[in-house]
Each structure stands twice: as structure tokens, then as C-alpha cells.
């Protein structure tokens, strides 16, 4: 994007970057900027940690009783 401040451009691609949905060229461009910009690097690292934290917060295990109920729904082997 012509004329866009590199940090603004980097902020714009933060989500697809972490989702691994950027093209190779876009990914490389973002990485090159991150190599030299500690302002963006810090914010990317924060976002990565935030996602891990969200994942941990949502890592509720199912009760074994439910798993048993699901197994009981399977076709009986005759």
C-alpha cells in the first residue's frame, strides 16, 4: 500500500499474520518490518500471548460421563 505508515500497515496485517493467512510476500514484508521495529514487535508478541491465554481460558475438559454417553451412541458391534 503506497503511502501508508509502515507501523500502520503492520498493525493492519496483525491478525492474518498470526492466522498464517498472508501470502508469502506479505508475510515476508511484515517480518522484515518486525525485525527492525520494536514497537510493533512488542504488540505482536502481546497478541500472540493473548491468543494463547484465550485458548487456555477456554480449555475446559468434557466430563468423562459425556464421553461415555457419546461412545454409547455408536453403532453396536454385533
Amino acid at each position, binding site marked *: 500500500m503506497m503511502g501508508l505508515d509502515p507501523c500502520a500497515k503492520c498493525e493492519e496485517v496483525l491478525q492474518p499474520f498470526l492466522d498464517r493467512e498472508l501470502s508469502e510476500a506479505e508475510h515476508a514484508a511484515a517480518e522484515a518490518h518486525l525485525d527492525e521495529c520494536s514497537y510493533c514487535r512488542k*504488540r505482536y508478541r*502481546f*497478541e500472540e500471548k493473548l491468543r494463547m491465554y484465550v485458548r487456555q481460558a*477456554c*480449555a*475446559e475438559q468434557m*466430563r468423562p460421563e459425556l464421553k461415555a454417553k457419546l461412545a454409547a451412541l455408536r453403532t453396536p458391534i454385533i
Partner: protein
Amino acid sequence: MSSNGPETDARRIASDARERVRFEEEVMDLADQVYRVARRLVPTREEAEDLVQETYARAFRSWRSYTPGTNLRAWLFRILTNLNIDRGRREQRAPATQPLEEGDYFLYNRLEADSGSEDEERIVERLSQDGIVDALSVVPHDFRDVIVLVDIGDFTYQDAAQILDIPIGTVMSRLHRGRRILKQQLAEAAVQEGA
């Protein structure tokens, strides 16, 4: 009775049974992932358990509609999200005009300014895990479904589009807006806690 004779029929039945067992085993291996996603799609554990049971009952019943070699996870999660929609949990609509923060860096900037720390790890730890779960539950359904599939279910944009039967561009815009809503909730919660 088929004209192939009893022996061929028996072989076909046996191979059918083997395929079915394999299918059911693969579906069972995905149960933890299905539950984790279901748990965030609905408000309570009981509802999540019902939803998962219905999903499995339907998956086992309609196993023939799955084409071996295609994406089984996406197939199964599509059943889950469709059942969730059918269960009438869609009354909550996204507030179309809710003003949102302008950029993706704002949560970090807000928390950093608030805490005076520059350490990302410490800043993240200011958010409580319960707070995250609460914040996610406030995100409107349409946006939350996409966040949950991509961030918790680990699906690509393409898979999420297929599961929810929406264009990939819609996945991206909902994800974008949904994550902003989530961050806004987290920022508000952090400010309240700090106050």
C-alpha cells in the same frame, strides 16, 4: 438380493462395517475439540453437553453423507454449528452501529498505559482467565462463532467459511470485528478491575 451372489454381498457388508467403525473411531477422537468449541458457543455446560450429544447422534446417523478422504473435522463441526443455529440460539443480533476502537494495537496500548509496564507477559497476565471467558460470552453470536472456530477450533478461514456456509470475506470481516469487540470488553474489564 443382489445378482452378485451371497459371497460378494457378505464381503460388501463386512467392508461397510469396517468403514463405519473407522469413521466412528475418528469422530470419537475429535470429541474433546468438539466439546471445547461447543462450550463457547452456548452459555452453560449443560447446553454444551446436549449440543455435543445431538451432534454425535446426528453424525453417527448420517455417516454415509461423509465422503472418506475429505475434511472430517469440518464436516463434523458443520453439524455442530447447524444444530446450534437450529436450536434457536440466534435471537441476539450484532449491534450494527456499536462504535469500535480503531486499531488492533489498542488493547496493548491501553493496558500498557494503565500498568506502566512494558513487559507483554505481565500485561497479558493482568487479564483474568474468567474475565476472558466472560468477555467472549458477550461477543454477539455471529462474530463469536467465527472466533471460536478459528481461535479455539484452529480452523483456517477457508474451513470456517465452509462450516458456517458463508463467504470467506465474511469470515474475515466477522473475525476482525469480533476480535475488536472481544478486546474492547477486555479493556473495559481491566479498567474496572484496576479502578
